[in-house]
């Protein structure tokens, strides 16, 4: 029975089913209260968690997102049930941490991870096209590094308890969300009263959706970055068919709910600085490729005991803190009294994205083995 389920999830119909379920759930989460075109955004949601913990003080984006917790724990449950939980760590953790920081800086320049780029497109936000083009470019550069022998080296088997650290962190976050303790007068936790951070589906819905997606994604190895990488590297469309299913399913649900509005501006939590949308996502795509997985995939790997993926995810949380504290994040378009107030990327953000690309290139060039 277990083997048969494993075979199904490894098959083409399996990955398509997973992608479609993610697309449907993401669009429904938007209906249930999550921010527009942000039913699920791994980068944004990790950024919101960083905000709730006070790692940055951008008042509009602070909330402990149960979807992220669900991703890790859903993957943990799947890995335990199918005997795939395997604690491992030690493949250049500091490099992965830095890649996580850079990936977040790039994603927040664009205002979304690959998941949200797809959901933005499904909602009619045409800025997502430049973002996805940038993502492809970044992955393409990463593939060139992979072909020329780039590797972060082997991980090692480690104590099972080490593999449990990330799931336990998620359980603690969940307790903080439910009980909302206050630490000192002006201390954490912080929950947005306005803006995207204040918009969320009911906690149990978010958590259930997260758990379900985490379970499916662990079984199918769903990965947005991997989908493009595999096409470029070996013309393998397996993961790409799952990602296409996500886009199509989310589009269909959005159309049915009347949630599609085509155009460039104004779009919810988005800006139309095309060059920086492109370069921001190029940075994110390159960092994901060098680290071996999109931000969602890193959470699923962390759930099945991969300590290196956990380090990358924590790097992204810290990166969100850096991004907002140092004014590196993109500013969304706003509408004041019917007039569009164009957002964009602050100069600090432009410098950070350029520097991030240079750092990724340095990592890619200097960490190669002769294949």
């Amino acid at each position, binding site marked *: 029975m277990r083997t048969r389920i494993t075979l199904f999830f490894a098959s083409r119909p399996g990955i398509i089913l997973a992608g479609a379920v993610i697309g449907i759930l993401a669009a429904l989460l938007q209906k249930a209260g999550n921010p527009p075109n942000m039913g699920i955004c791994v980068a944004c949601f990790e950024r919101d968690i960083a905000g709730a913990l006070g790692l940055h003080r951008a008042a509009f984006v602070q909330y402990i997102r149960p979807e992220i917790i669900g991703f890790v724990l859903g993957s943990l449950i799947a890995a335990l049930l199918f005997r795939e939980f395997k604690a491992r760590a030690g*493949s250049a953790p500091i490099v992965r941490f830095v890649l996580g920081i850079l990936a977040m800086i790039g994603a927040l320049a664009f205002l979304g991870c690959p998941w949200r780029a797809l959901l933005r497109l499904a909602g009619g936000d045409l800025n997502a096209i430049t973002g996805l083009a940038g993502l492809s470019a970044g992955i393409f550069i990463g593939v060139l590094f*992979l072909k020329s022998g780039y590797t972060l080296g082997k*991980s090692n088997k480690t104590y099972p308890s080490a593999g449990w650290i990330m799931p336990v962190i998620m359980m603690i976050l969940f307790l903080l969300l439910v009980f909302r303790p206050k630490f000192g007068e002006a201390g954490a936790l912080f929950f947005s009263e306005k803006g995207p951070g204040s918009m969320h589906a009911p906690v149990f819905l978010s958590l259930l959706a997260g758990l379900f997606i985490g379970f499916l994604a662990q079984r199918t*190895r769903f990965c947005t970055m*991997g989908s493009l990488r*595999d096409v470029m*590297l*070996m013309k*393998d469309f397996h993961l790409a068919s799952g990602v296409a299913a996500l886009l199509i399913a989310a589009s269909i649900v959005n159309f049915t709910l009347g949630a599609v509005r085509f155009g460039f501006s104004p779009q919810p939590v988005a800006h139309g600085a095309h060059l920086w949308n492109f370069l921001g996502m190029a940075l994110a795509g390159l960092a994901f490729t060098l680290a071996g997985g999109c931000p969602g995939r890193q959470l699923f790997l962390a759930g099945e005991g991969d300590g290196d993926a956990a380090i990358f995810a924590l790097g992204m949380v810290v990166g969100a803190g850096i991004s907002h504290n140092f004014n590196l994040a993109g500013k969304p378009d706003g509408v004041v009294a019917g007039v569009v107030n164009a957002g964009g990327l602050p100069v600090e953000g432009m410098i950070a994205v350029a520097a991030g690309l240079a750092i990724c290139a340095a990592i890619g060039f200097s960490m190669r083995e002769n294949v």
Partner: protein
Amino acid sequence: MGKQVDARGLSCPQPVILAKKAIDEGNFPVEVTVDTVTSRENVRRMAENGGCRVRVEEAADEFKLIITR
């Protein structure tokens, strides 16, 4: 004869890249050792898509994929 590839502990997609390189060199049978189910599936899919036959031997926490043309 044949070629051995130790891809244990390597993250995606390196086991596949190493296995593909060995297959392209043509020294069959190619034996690829991996330590995650994900790598096992990825290497198997790549090899089978490339017209190879794959047999898997499972040992403590590891999988050995024996790839033949």
